[in-house]
């Protein structure tokens, strides 16, 4: 029922066998090659004869000191056991029986052979690119995707907001600080000192009810104003020690500078 692809002839087979073990894909494959040399349907194969052939073959390979993969030896051991079991009279029903083991092997060989044969027939089919050809440069069916652009009004105004936010010129607004200018202080201290005949504290020349920043500015400006007015000879200044209160008084026309 299976077509028989080219098998090595019996004359050439032994030589081929000894040349290389790479020719077989494992012990089952080797068994199948040997089985097919029996030239009978695999269903009628003699497992006993096959077993002997395999063991002979392995023995021959060993004598030639061929490197044998372990699974070939495992198969040999198993077949040796099977052979003795088949030959010896059966005492009691072993499980599995040697006959069943032999049948299993036969079934496996049939299945491997069936697939090998199927593979050969598959490969022999008209294959695309080897036997039949499709167009080498098809133009192709184009599915042109037409973009449906999506954007919401929110996206739009948010984008605009971001542009404005990032491109707005950065303005450094300097807060207008409450100050009393020097001119202002000179005028104020100059006019007030005329009324102060006796020593009067600098603080008394400041405008009343000032908040703190302005008060500090006024104090500093008034002090500088006092120095200026003293330099002009219009008033005298006096301080008893470091951080002590500063006193001012109008200068009498006949007096010299204060210490």
């Amino acid at each position: 029922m299976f077509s028989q692809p080219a098998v090595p002839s019996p004359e050439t087979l032994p030589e081929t066998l000894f040349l290389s073990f790479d020719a077989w894909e494992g012990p089952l494959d080797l068994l199948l090659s040997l089985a097919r040399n029996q030239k009978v349907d695999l269903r009628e194969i003699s497992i006993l004869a096959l077993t002997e052939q395999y063991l002979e073959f392995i023995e021959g390979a060993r004598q030639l000191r061929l490197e044998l993969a372990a699974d070939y030896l495992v198969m040999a051991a198993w077949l040796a056991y099977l052979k003795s079991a088949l030959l010896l009279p059966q005492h009691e029903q072993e499980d599995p029986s040697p006959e069943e083991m032999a049948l299993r092997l036969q079934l496996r060989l049939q299945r491997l052979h069936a697939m090998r044969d199927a593979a050969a027939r598959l490969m022999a089919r008209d294959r695309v690119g080897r036997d039949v050809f499709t167009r080498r440069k098809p133009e192709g069916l184009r599915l042109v995707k037409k973009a449906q652009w999506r954007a919401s009004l929110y996206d739009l105004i948010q984008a605009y907001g971001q542009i404005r936010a990032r491109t707005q010129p950065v303005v450094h607004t300097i807060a207008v600080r409450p100050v009393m200018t020097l001119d202002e202080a000179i005028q104020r201290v100059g006019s007030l000192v005329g009324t102060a005949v006796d020593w009067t504290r600098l603080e008394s020349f400041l405008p009343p009810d000032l908040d703190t920043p302005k008060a500090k500015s006024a104090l500093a400006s008034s002090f500088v104003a006092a120095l200026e007015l003293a330099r002009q000879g219009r008033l005298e200044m006096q301080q008893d020690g470091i951080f002590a209160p500063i006193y001012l008084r109008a200068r009498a026309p006949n007096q010299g500078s204060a210490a």
Partner: protein
Amino acid sequence: MSMEPDDFLRAVEAALFVAEAPLTPAELKLHVGNGGDLDAALQALASHYAGRGINLVERGGRWHFQTASDLAHILRREKDEPRKLSRAAMETLAIIAYHEPVSRAEIDSIRGVQVAKGTLDVLMEAGWIRPAGRREVPGRPLIYATSVEFLTHFGLGSRRDLPGMDDLRAAGLLDPVDLALEGMGGQSVLENDEEEA
């Protein structure tokens, strides 16, 4: 006579001609619309091209034009020769195709040898096999199946067209050994006549 059906057929013909890959009827409809009976058009085209230098074929539910196989010799170029598969790869592919979906352990048990990692990779890279989920047994092994590209490449309308598929199935050769033994009742082990071809 109505021009309508003709134009529909012409559109199907043109679409299949320019397509870069085999097309399902659904894909074809996206282009040719519903202005005619697509199945009828495909059948009409297939029979029109039968016997010509170009044939219209269906593979795994997809349609494409290809050259007639008897013209291979005039069309084949050196570089067309597909990569040669190793014997292991060919057998593995056949096992997957005839048994799918199938796990690596099941492939191994048929071949009596462990399939090399690279073998499945080669078949996967060729686009002929694909992982097809996991088997719900301990270890949840990956299982493999063939692809549409496999059918296309090997000129198979479907897996039913796999050579010898029916015979193999009837002979029980696609059943696991255990199942086959069970079918024989585990008895009369050397009597082969229970296993019928």
